[in-house]
């Protein structure tokens, strides 16, 4: 019994354990539902999955199913980011416990019942519980925003702090996290309000299918704004998180944080104002430029830090020594690289599409435009996922050759897949339709191979963590002990502060 209790405590009462559970949930979702499309259909795996698991797939409900699947994954990834935030940002222990508890209950409820509703028949109790789950995630978001409140006295920064601060001492990084949380809550509301019209004037659709409709309804525009900004904010979230990971500070931090705050506000305002404003895209472009500049500051800082750390013992390091230092640890180098790579596969593609819309993309058939659109946001989601994996692998204490193989395999193979997907979606730029067989075969193979191996590596990582969990003195036990120690120390500080505060009150009253 103690065996189970210890593991349960680790998995559901520690940040690392909760994150591990959430990553396992995403892995299982990917493993099962990934068999329902793409090459898995070609190989006949879809039929086996459907038959073995007894799924009920109605063709007309495919888009609805996909939307629910996206939501379940998004809820889980949101939970992972929230776990990271509650661990790395100062907040009271009880705040951390409540936020993590509520969001865990929320996302698990949403995942279980959302998928049951979507893939195993329309039982409306399941749908109701899916909504309950999402509501709990939303509620956890409110609690997080309250806990992040940057105006609290104890979170103000000293004048000589190396971190970005306002004149009044506001911690601008905390403000960025806070603004992101608020933006997410508002953006989620846009989705929820439209969702509440489901079946009453609003019909399920995928954004890319409507792209060429000159007249979209307000509800459709609200959904399009919602889906874009939610993914953007998840990307912003992980950028801020990895910033904390490498202890981002100094001049670049002081430039980056105000940019990030303005960027979040601008992009969110732009994305949501598509409902009313014809020129909302201009606001989005401006806002996202600020976010990208802030991310650039982070990349420069983290790479510079890696070079400095790696060449610390060398008096005047040459170019190759610097490069060696930069590339020494793929887990630390990777997040920055993935952000840079994103410019070629996501931002660059998006800007190119916007600039050449009338000249190229609207000349292509709608289906090709759709492929490019879905491709670029799938890539962004997957890039966020790889950054999360690298961060979590670091937290899990991967060392030595395993760390290097894991890191480089994730970076290279995912980038091969994303690069191929980009080439696939842009193939008309350089190959006539009549001659595309070669490009299609090659890019599809590289996409399947790249993503397939990344998923196998992820599976191996998860199997290792599972094996570790079965050990008495496994890595999990150390993680849990370290976290309990840290929590106890934090609690002690908090209690001391509270005692001092109460003594001060008593002193004041007794006067």
């Amino acid at each position, binding site marked *: 019994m103690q065996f189970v209790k210890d593991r349960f405590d680790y998995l559901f009462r520690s940040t690392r354990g909760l994150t591990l559970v959430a990553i396992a949930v995403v892995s299982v979702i990917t493993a099962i539902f990934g068999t329902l499309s793409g090459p898995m259909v070609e190989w006949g795996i879809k039929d086996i999955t459907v038959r073995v698991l007894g799924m009920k797939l109605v063709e007309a409900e495919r888009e609805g199913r996909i939307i629910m699947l996206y939501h379940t994954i998004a809820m889980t990834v949101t939970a992972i980011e929230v776990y990271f935030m509650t661990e790395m940002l100062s907040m009271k222990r009880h705040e951390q416990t409540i936020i993590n508890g509520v969001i865990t209950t929320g996302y698990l409820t949403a995942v279980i019942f959302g998928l049951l509703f979507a893939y195993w028949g329309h039982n409306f109790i399941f749908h109701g519980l899916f909504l309950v789950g999402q509501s709990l995630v939303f509620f956890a978001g409110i609690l997080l925003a309250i806990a992040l409140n940057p105006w609290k006295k104890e979170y103000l920064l000293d004048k000589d702090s190396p971190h970005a601060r306002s004149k009044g001492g506001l911690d601008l990084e905390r403000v960025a996290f806070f603004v992101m949380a608020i933006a997410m809550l508002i953006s989620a509301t846009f989705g929820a309000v439209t969702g509440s019209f489901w079946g009453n004037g609003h019909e399920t659709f995928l954004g890319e299918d409507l792209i*060429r409709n*000159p007249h979209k309804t307000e509800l459709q525009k609200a959904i399009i704004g919602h889906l874009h900004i939610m993914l953007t904010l998840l990307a912003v979230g992980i950028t801020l998180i990895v910033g904390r990971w490498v202890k981002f500070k100094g001049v670049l931090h002081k430039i980056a944080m105000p940019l990030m705050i303005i960027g979040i506000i601008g992009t969110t305002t732009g994305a949501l104002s598509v409902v009313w404003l014809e020129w909302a895209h201009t606001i989005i472009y401006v806002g996202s430029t600020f976010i990208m500049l802030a991310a650039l500051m982070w990349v420069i800082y983290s790479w510079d830090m890696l070079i400095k750390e790696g060449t610390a013992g060398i008096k005047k390091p040459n170019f190759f020594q610097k490069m060696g230092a930069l590339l020494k640890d793929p887990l630390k180098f990777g997040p920055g690289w993935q952000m840079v790579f994103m410019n070629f596969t996501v931002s660059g593609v998006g800007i190119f599409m916007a600039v050449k*819309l009338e000249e190229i993309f*609207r000349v292509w058939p*709608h289906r090709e435009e759709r492929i490019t659109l879905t491709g670029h946001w799938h890539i962004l989601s997957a890039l966020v996922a790889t950054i999360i994996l690298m961060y979590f692998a670091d937290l899990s204490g991967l060392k030595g050759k395993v760390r290097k193989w894991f890191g480089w395999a994730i970076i290279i193979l995912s980038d091969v897949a994303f690069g191929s997907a980009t080439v696939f979606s842009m193939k008309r730029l350089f190959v006539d339709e009549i001659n595309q067989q070669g490009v299609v075969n090659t890019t599809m*193979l590289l996409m399947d*191979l790249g993503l397939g191996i990344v998923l196998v590596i992820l599976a191996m990582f998860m199997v290792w963590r599972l094996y570790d969990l079965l050990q008495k003195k496994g890595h999990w036990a150390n993680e849990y002990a370290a976290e309990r120690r840290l929590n106890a120390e934090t609690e002690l500080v908090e209690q001391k502060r509270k005692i001092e505060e109460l003594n001060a009150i008593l002193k004041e009253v007794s006067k």
Partner: protein
Amino acid sequence: MKRTLFILTLLALTLAACGTAPSIGAITPPFVDPGIDPESWAVVPAGVFPYGQHDHMTEVNGYEIMVTDVTNEQYARFLNEALADGTIQVGEVEVEAGELVWRETGVYGAYPGDPFNGYEHEEEIKAGNKLYIATTIEGLRLTFDGTQFAAIHEYSNHPMTMVTWFGANAYCQYYGWRLPTEIEWEKAARGTELVNGHGLPYPWGEHIERNNANYYSSFDLFEKMFGKLGNTTPVGFFNGKTYDGYATLDSTSPYGLYDMAGNVWQWMGDDYPDQHYRMMRGGSFYTYEVDLRVWKNNSAGPQYYSPQVGFRCAR
């Protein structure tokens, strides 16, 4: 050593994928006769049917629609007739698409233009000569000796492709017909039946099997010959017959139409205000089965032509 082996394996796989890919333009398949008459028409009676993915019950007047897509042989005949009476010309013509303008050599004819409102992203389709087919491109299954068009024998009963919307529209109008509207096409494809509250997603029923239609990676007879991106199949190919050991399922629509899912996208007749993209229906040998669902559409400017786009007429 292990690292080198891994990289070499990756490279070998990539090269293998690149090396064996034929161009659709260069493919010549064997002549296969499915025995379906492309001159036949089906009657679709007036009445309501479930329209679109969300099954909105919609009223349509009665009409007739071609049982198969227009074939290369039929289109060659039209070109010869129209060339003889001066309806069309062969030569160089200006083509406009978005902000691009270029010249192409091919068959062209007059088009009266579309109403233009100047709406955001609306492309103006002006009156003037429009390209029907380009004659100097790879992939056209017709030959032209300077006076006469002829279908390449092996492709004579395959759907006419590489034809612009203008060319498809001109064919139908030449014989006093028209391109079907999206609503007409969908009713002809799925009929009126409701199963558990939903209209049929595929012309033949609720599910798709590989030998129901010609789509990406459907492993049909021609895909086995030329790679999984495939090629067109003769019109009416999926009629329950077995060809050279490849058994097809009878995949007609409730009104007896063939190829309403897969093979080639079909141009629709609608011109929607404020955009002027022309819709296509049915999916093609290039697309996954999700695009073969009867309500899915695709669109392009009327100047667009492709090896995966054809048409049929209604009257």
